[in-house]
């Protein structure tokens, strides 16, 4: 809250050069992390083996090809996109709700996606075999995406009256929806057998392990759409920090902005959660951290959040791959393990400065 209210005042301008420097630094960080993530894994295989083989015009050894090109590369792209999407969706939601604690889950995407995934895991076997065969193991991600989308649309309809969407209603309806979703999830958990229980527990912990090219190609357009659409909201979100009425007086089409924000978050978070499961903290910690460092102006905040979100998720994924190798620790655990204490530390440190 503090960061946001002081935002539109005099301080925004002061930190613009800082934000630009941050963008440059974060770009370098993302680049370094991306390259590193191609080198890190349970097998000692190095991407140089692939590059060397290509340069020498020799056939690439099967194991090197599979590990670098089919495992680490799609995983790199997926991690960067998911991290960026979650962080940017966090910025958009926090701006829209004018609350730094809002996260993408607040509009019901995560809960809905979770329900979709759980239902698919438990009841997937009941589908007519033709449908099941056609979807194959895309069933769970597709169900998660549909679940996320349906809940957002539902929330939007509930909280919109006479062409006006009430953010407060949306927030409350989101809580109601989450309660209903967890009830239905509970029924599914009750129906699940042991193996399905393990599956859905792991789904909730999140992982990039299932990143394949086909999954990436399916999810990428939606995440890219969200990432490209978000900057369009930057100016409106800046103005919205003054309050809805003030923003309206300043000529912002609030309703159009809300609709766009909801669509962006539904598409990008829906796709991200569908392919990676439950990964928390990115959406709250990344924007908050950047707001503390470089100020709340939304244009640089969105860009920087995308870069930092991608980098952090890739870093966490590297840890998840090697910390218990040859097994893998779900990335959601690592994000919470690192993100939680780090966030607390930032808050404590800041409290000292602000004298709150």
């Amino acid at each position, binding site marked *: 809250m503090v960061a946001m209210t002081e935002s539109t005042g005099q301080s925004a301008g002061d930190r613009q050069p800082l934000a630009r420097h941050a963008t440059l630094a974060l770009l370098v960080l993302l680049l370094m992390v991306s390259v590193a993530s191609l080198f890190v894994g349970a097998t000692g295989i190095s991407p140089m083996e692939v590059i060397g083989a290509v340069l020498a015009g020799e056939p690439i050894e099967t194991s090197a090809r599979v590990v670098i090109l089919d495992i680490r590369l799609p995983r790199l792209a997926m991690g960067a996109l998911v991290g960026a999407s979650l962080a940017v969706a966090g910025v958009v939601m926090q701006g829209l709700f004018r609350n730094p604690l809002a996260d993408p889950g607040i509009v019901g995407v995560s809960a809905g996606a979770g329900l979709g995934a759980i239902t698919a895991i438990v009841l997937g076997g009941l589908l007519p075999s033709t449908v099941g065969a056609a979807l194959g193991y895309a069933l769970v991600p597709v169900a998660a995406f549909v679940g996320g989308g349906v809940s957002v649309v539902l929330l939007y309809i509930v909280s919109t009256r006479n062409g006006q969407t009430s953010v407060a209603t949306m927030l409350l309806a989101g809580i109601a929806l989450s309660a209903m979703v967890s009830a239905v999830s509970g029924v599914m958990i009750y129906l699940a057998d042991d193996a399905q229980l393990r599956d859905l527990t792991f789904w909730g912990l999140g992982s990039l392990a299932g990143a394949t090219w086909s999954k990436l190609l399916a999810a990428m357009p939606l995440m890219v759409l969200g990432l490209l659409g978000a900057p369009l909201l930057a100016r409106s979100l800046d103005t919205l920090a003054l309050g809805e009425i003030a923003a309206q007086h300043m000529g912002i089409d609030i309703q159009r902005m809300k609709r766009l924000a909801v669509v962006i978050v539904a598409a990008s978070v829906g796709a991200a959660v569908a392919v990676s499961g439950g990964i928390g903290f990115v959406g709250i910690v990344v924007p908050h951290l950047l707001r503390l460092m470089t100020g709340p102006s939304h244009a640089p905040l969105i860009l920087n959040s995308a870069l930092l979100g991608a980098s952090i998720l890739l870093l966490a994924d590297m840890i998840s791959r090697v910390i218990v190798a040859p097994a*893998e620790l779900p990335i959601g655990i690592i994000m919470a393990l690192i993100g939680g204490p780090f966030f607390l530390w930032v808050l404590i440190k800041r409290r000292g400065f602000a004298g709150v």
Partner: protein
Amino acid sequence: MKLSTFAFAAALTVTPVAGLADRVLSIGGSVTEIVYALGEGDRLVARDSTSNFPAEAVELPDVGYIRQLSAEGVLSVAPDLILMEGGAGPAETIDLLREAEIPMVEVADGYTPEAVEDKIRAVAKALNVRDKGEALAAEVRAQIAEARATVSEGVPRVLFVLSQASGRIMAAGEGTSAEAIIELAGGENALTGFQGYKQISEEAVMAAAPDVILMMDREGDHAVANDELFSQPAFASTPAAEGERVVRMDGLLLLGFGPRVGEAVSQLAAALHGDEG
């Protein structure tokens, strides 16, 4: 192990011949047990987290949970053969491993003596030790037959209690491995009407009227002493409470349906039909 020079050379080529695999990854507790029971444990290079028996297996690198395998993790132990219990996954990982041209053998699961014999034969075939497989399968069959021969008249009703954490009773319904082993040992599952392991009410325990309570023998707070068990009204009013008939067995042995299934049946049968008390 007898290997001709030719065969040895073949083993070193890039595409390994399944029959000569000596870097075997075993996924699934019962499959790993079978590999050791066949005396081929030294050919294993890694296992999954469900493979906890025998003790040597635990020393091997662990590639994670059977349904949550990481493709690169599996590749990192450089297996030239992967033995998988049914249900190993996820499918994405299996696809990637197939693409990496690693021979994989899926061993079908099942809760019958025949299924265990088939499992043993499948593993033995994959490891190219068919004779040992036939011998082990015959041994298991003989063990079960012998155990069942000692089963006396009367079919005790057995309630398998999976856990009792904070007073919630999780028990075995139909189609479970617990039910299968109880029936093999000449008992009947006291609980019917639902599939799998579920939480049941105290009244359901009373309605099931078990003659014997079967539990897993484990350390820590899951282990419930007889006194504590029968101090609960639900259990106190069951036939099992008279004479405090509680059987505790090692979980992996009891429910594993691996090569020790014969041992499990004979232990359980002895406990169910032996002298009361």
